[in-house]
């Protein structure tokens, strides 16, 4: 009798899925006692739910030997490890949406290894959707995800994750946003990078890119997109935890990479 073939990163994939699923129920709607604070010059909004969820995610990942970094605790670490695999958590990506009652927010857990998102899970609690990887594939609530091999730009629906206000590239980002909005079926800013990237994996969007986003926002979702057959490029700064990324159906990726080259910094990014 032949032995079962090992599934790559299966233990980690199961932990990631268990983690996001277990907290998904509590995030069906903002709690009545959600407290909000505004941090720093970047006007990030953090809710008390973020803190509770991150704590729950960490608890589920406790059996993993890989270090865990979350938005609330990454400042203590100083920078990300230069080698080895590590976890990145985003307890609520799209906090502004969450607090406003807009159902486009996500819980994200991703594992990076050598700079590549190798496994991850993303829950969209309001939609009751679970995106996850298993082996080299990705699924949505059990259904296999497979992006189209190619979509022409004029037929593409695009997603954009803008940098924070004050970023030097912001004016160019907005110009590209306007141009690509006219040349495609439209360019959407959904307010959650994880949701946008998962929507590429689910073929709801054709492509999505982000400038100077927080790495923990995208790690899980980019793993899902890879498993769905999308082409993914990610480049991040381990000291600032900021990342640029592009994810697209394979046929459209080179064209978008060229168009975005002045704004999205992906030179040397593994894909």
């Amino acid at each position, binding site marked *: 009798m032949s032995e*079962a*073939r090992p*599934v790559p990163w*299966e233990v980690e*994939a*199961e932990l990631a*899925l*268990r983690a996001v*699923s277990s907290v*998904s*129920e509590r995030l069906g709607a903002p709690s009545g006692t959600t407290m909000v604070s505004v941090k720093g010059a970047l006007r990030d909004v953090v809710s008390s739910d973020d803190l509770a969820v991150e704590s729950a995610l960490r608890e589920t990942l406790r059996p993993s030997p890989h270090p865990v970094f979350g938005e609330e605790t990454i400042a203590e670490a100083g920078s990300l490890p230069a080698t080895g695999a590590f976890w990145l958590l985003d307890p609520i990506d799209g906090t502004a949406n969450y607090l406003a009652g807009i159902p486009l927010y996500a819980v994200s857990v991703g594992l990076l290894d050598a700079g590549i998102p190798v496994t991850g899970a993303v829950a969209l609690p309001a939609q*009751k*959707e*679970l995106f*996850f990887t*298993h*082996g080299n*594939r990705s*699924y949505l*609530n*059990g*259904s*296999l995800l497979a992006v189209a091999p190619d979509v022409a730009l004029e037929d593409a629906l695009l997603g954009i994750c803008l940098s924070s206000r004050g970023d030097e590239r912001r004016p160019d980002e907005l110009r590209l946003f306007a141009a690509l909005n006219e040349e495609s079926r439209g360019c959407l800013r959904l307010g959650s990078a994880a949701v946008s990237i998962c929507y590429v994996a689910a073929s709801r969007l054709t492509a999505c890119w982000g400038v100077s986003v927080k790495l923990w926002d995208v790690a899980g979702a980019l793993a899902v997109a890879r498993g769905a057959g999308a082409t993914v490029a990610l480049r991040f700064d381990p000291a600032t935890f900021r990342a640029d990324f592009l994810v697209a159906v394979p046929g459209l990726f080179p064209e978008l990479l060229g168009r975005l080259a002045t704004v999205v910094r992906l030179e040397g990014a593994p894909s």
Partner: protein
Amino acid sequence: MSTIAVFGAGAIGRGYLPWVFDEADDDFIFVDSQPALVSALSARDSFLTFRAAETDRIVERRVRVARALLSDAVTPADLEAASAVFVCVGPRNVARVAPALQALTSPVVVCENDPATVDLLIRLTGRQNIRFAVPDVISSNSAPEGLRKRDPLALVTETGILHIAEGPVLPKGDYRLCSPAAMRREWTAKLFLHNTPHCIAAYLGAVAGVTYVHEAMQIPAVEVVVRGAMDEMLSALKAQWEIPHDFLDWYASKELSRFSNRLLCDPVGRVAREPLRKLDPRGRLLGAAQICLSHGCVPTNVLMGIAAALLFDSEGDADHHMAFMRRAIGPTAFLSHVLGLKEGDALEVVLRTQLDGLAERIGRIRGAHV
């Protein structure tokens, strides 16, 4: 003389459809995604296929191969000679067939176990000349060793009936054209009086560790559940729809002997494959249970089948990730997110509260036979 194009050279396409047409006059263009199978068919101008005429007699037929093509490479020109096109690739693969069908004018007959596949193909191709068919037949995707020695491409089917929705002319063959009402009746009976108990036999057979469905039916603990599920569905269908009861009784009466037919050598793995598809909310397991519950019956035997389906895990299966999901997200989230059951609905409550008990009963079947 007709040339019939068949997408999907498997149990139905290669094993059953040749029996619908004329052995001497008709030939086939087979289109499949498996390179080895297409190569093997291309190397031959014919192959043998077999039918279990009764429970103790096999008859053979020689199938003439006009061409065999890989589905990725087929073009409309390749299919121009076809008088009709039959699609039997599995419901999940139907969308991939659409590009090849778009430019054709031949009638298309969809032999998938899901009427929604017809709507899908109509939408994807823009063609209207696409219709539903119900091959009421058990066809194996394998054959006993003795028959495979005679021909490696051999498959075994039983004597079935092909019901095709009325429409424009098709090549002459042994099939029944049905009105919409008749198709609904045949489809309902096939889905709930055949597919429901059949897949339950397969899932419990997988638990018991047997290879073929007929072996599962020889296990008393399995046979009693399958029979019980048949009775549950028969009662529910009589209450639910205005389908003549004598038709339903007649249909049900022949099923168990079909499952027990040793000549078919129908693998448990074939009938049980893709359990998430079989667990579709409107389908042969959950849909069946819903119908029973809506009439005040808790279908214990159908529920056993659902529980056994949830436990099915085969490494090569497309839904091999199901076990991974159940471990990761737990039963409550599995019922809601994967099976789409709303919390508090009758079936969700019944499954959530009874799954452990059902699993225990299933474990006794496993323990007795593995």
